[in-house]
């Protein structure tokens, strides 16, 4: 190893042809030393995202109050190298069709806010990170949506689970009881969000078992929803994007109906996330489809 580093440290400064702008090397090139190094895995410096999404009204509702948004970009040039993805699931509520108004307003407002503050900065002639932090921008988008819903659809509300992928970090803004999951290639499913529901809170306090919670008459009661209440604070967390596996966002029409084991099985049925997504929705409908169903499945290949 010392040998390699010796070579590295003594490497000649790169000579730039005049007129050419020196830039940060796109990839860090390890020196060749085939005798001692196993050939490195061929990989880009950013994750290639493969995405499917699906939405269904279910079998027992006459209108769909869920809304979803999925946007995936890979950008590779001399100046910059980025994976950018924005995925949102919102599950609206409130009478007089205001639920679907709220969920629609939520995804459009946040998508627009983040596109302007974050995504467009990647496309600037001289790309530079924004002044605000990524979490501040997500927070700003959520607050913006909160205000818009309070104004345009008073009395209504919506859950919101928004996932922002920027290179190898993912940041999740979350309100309500839609969920984000991470599924490892080994098949373990982990919830990345915390339900803002009364039953979940009572389970956390040891006042309810999960069996009792699943049949509790108030299992749909949320203590936090977009468009409801002031002051208002979403949960915002940043996690490393898994090296491989799946990330899933979904409304309770999926996770409340299809068991975790079944979700794991269906995700792995097809390497195509769009097909897997459709299986998930079909499974929820096969189980009675009591609620609107939305799912976004993001595959991070090995």
């Amino acid at each position, binding site marked *: *190893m*010392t040998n390699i*580093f010796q070579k*590295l*440290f*003594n*490497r000649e400064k790169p000579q730039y042809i005049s007129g050419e702008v020196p830039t*940060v090397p796109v990839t*860090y090139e390890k020196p060749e030393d085939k005798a001692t190094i196993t050939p490195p895995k061929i990989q880009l410096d950013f994750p290639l995202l493969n995405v499917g999404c699906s939405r269904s009204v279910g079998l027992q509702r006459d209108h769909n*109050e869920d809304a979803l948004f999925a946007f995936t970009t890979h950008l590779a040039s001399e100046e910059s190298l980025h994976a950018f993805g924005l995925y949102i699931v919102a*599950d*609206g*509520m*409130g*009478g*007089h*069709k205001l*639920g679907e108004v709220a969920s629609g307003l939520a995804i459009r407002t946040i998508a627009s806010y983040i596109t302007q503050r974050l995504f467009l900065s990647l496309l600037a002639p001289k790309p530079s*990170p924004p002044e*605000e*932090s*990524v*979490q*501040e921008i997500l927070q700003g988008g959520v607050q913006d949506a909160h205000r818009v819903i309070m*104004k345009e659809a*008073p*009395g209504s*509300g919506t859950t919101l689970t928004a996932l922002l992928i*920027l*290179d*190898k*970090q993912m940041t999740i803004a979350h309100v309500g009881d839609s969920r984000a999951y991470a599924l490892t290639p080994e098949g373990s499913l982990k919830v990345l969000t915390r339900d*803002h529901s*009364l039953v979940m*809170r*009572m389970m*956390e*306090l040891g*006042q309810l078992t999960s069996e009792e919670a699943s049949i509790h008459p*108030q299992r*749909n*009661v*949320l*203590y*936090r*929803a977009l468009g*409801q*209440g*002031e*002051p*208002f*604070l979403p*949960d*915002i*967390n*940043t*996690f*490393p994007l898994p090296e491989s596996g799946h990330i899933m966002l979904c409304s309770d029409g999926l996770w409340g109906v299809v068991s975790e084991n079944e979700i794991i099985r269906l995700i792995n049925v097809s390497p195509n996330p769009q097909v897997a997504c459709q299986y998930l929705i079909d499974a929820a409908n096969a189980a009675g489809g009591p*609620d*609107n169903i939305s799912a976004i499945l993001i595959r991070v290949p090995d």
Partner: protein
Amino acid sequence: METQQISQDIGPEGERDTSQQLQAGTNLEDRYLIQGVLGIGGMGAVYRARDLHFPNVIKLVAVKEMVNRALDPVVRSTIVRNFEREANLLASLDHRAIPRIYDYFSLNERSYLVLEYIQGHDLETLLNNTPEFIAEDRVVRWAVELCDVMEFLHNHKPDIIVFRDMKPSNVMINPQDHIVLIDFGIAKQFQVGQKGTMIGTEGYSPPEQYRGEATPLADIYALGATLHHVLTHRDPRLEAPFSFSERPVRQINPNVSPALETVINIALQYNPEDRYQSASEMKDALLGVARETGILSKITLPGKSAPKSGEGLKPVWQFRCEDEIRGSPIYHNGAIYVGCYDNNLYSLDAEHGNFNWKYPTESGIVSKPAIFEDNLIFGSEDHRLHAVYLRTGKVNWTYYTSGPIRSSPSIAEGYIFIGSDDTYMHAVNALTGRHAWRVESGSPIRSTPVVHEDNIYFGTEAGDFYCLDYSGTVKWRFKAKRAITSSPAISKGVVYFGSVDSVLYALDAKSGWVIWRYRFGKPSISTPWIEENLLFTGAVDGVIYCLEASSSREIWRFTTQHQVTGSPIVFNDSVYCGSVDGYLYCLEYRTGRLRWKFQTKGPITGTPTAFGDIVYIGSTDQHLYALLV
């Protein structure tokens, strides 16, 4: 998501505009001249108005407007009837903490209540405008008054009245510093079509209220929640419901007496039967607190029930140097190595503190040594990086920079990376001490570099933060507003560091993008420590902070008596951190509760190190202490 729809007809006519407010100058009932908006609630606005029946004096009233959103005519008229019944009831109440109700009327889809105009500020506004904690005696006085009016309502005949909505924004503080309740549950009548799935952020409500039960014991809980908010400045609407016990009052505001904390805890019990069973019982308890704290402050010392002070904690051993110890010790193979301002690097037997050897440099040593094979590596203010044999203390090699070294070395892949006041980041061959490369940063580097996945991260005194690759090429650079003396910590692809600009930064290690920023009250030069998803660090405001690393959410804070310039470590399930107040603190790492503190005779600016059952800490009182934990 299910919603209960009370009204039947659904149609585009349902989307009526309810946000329209009355303009100043509007005359209601040919009597109330609207002057302006006092506030806007979920049901409608509250206006300040002048009562024109008193033409010769200016009589101000508050006019509360409630918009009837029900579309079904039967439901609408039921709501109006209920409203009028409640208004009649409230108009009959006579208590100095309840505003008089003068009048009520309904116009189209809106109903109005005309009330006594209360001067002053509501408690939420007062809280928002008061950065410091409000004095306990003042809060206790308000609390007694609130219990008094609650006692009045709960004993009302023939039917008791439950306030249902006790929270700071519903409590006015008048110019005489007395409380007045301003919003009775009357508005609840108008919340049709919203029940069922949503309850909003009612952070003050007890668990049973979510089942639709409103009892006097629910008011007791909400009063406890209100007092908790007032004393801690932590808004329960921003926290999970029923989570008050996770943030005890005195942990956030140590000035509150234990007696008052106990009263609040009893009011906030999950099960109603465990709370005070009446407002008068709670009032008596509060009066007891007032008596007790009043007397106690004269005759006994505070902190009687505080955790053991550690004053009795005897060090396993202590070793005296010839000058201040400002840097941090390191443990290796049964020995402790520490640099001192007396220019020497000491090697001591870790078990008994016996002197092994000392190695003299030509100036003070303020950093933490590192180990490479059988060498001890450290920088000195004599401009040099020294490599000394661990066993003998004899020099192997030295490497010269052009300025004092205050940064600590970082070693990876056979290379030492170290910053110097000469503004360069140096890469030195660890075996030979030969120069590999140096990178100019533009200002002194006192931050200790961290090597992570083929990159080197460090801050500079000009506020630049660099990410270099192993060849010394700048991969990215970030600029803070003031110096970055703090050394970075890296976990899960995120690099964390504090700055003298009073901000703690979390940056994506790959791109340098800011993930979050957390604002301290004062500058920070402390190095963060990450354990699981928790980040621990200190700041010049004297506080040891624990934040959630993924979100920057504050988990707890512990206030010491002076600046925290050293860095915390987590060992077993405790945080150990020194302070300029001279103490080494041992805190429970999940809650921040004090386990013990150990007093040295001078400020502590270094970082402890732990091995086995022993924590080692240097102090500017010239001693290195070994404490059994």
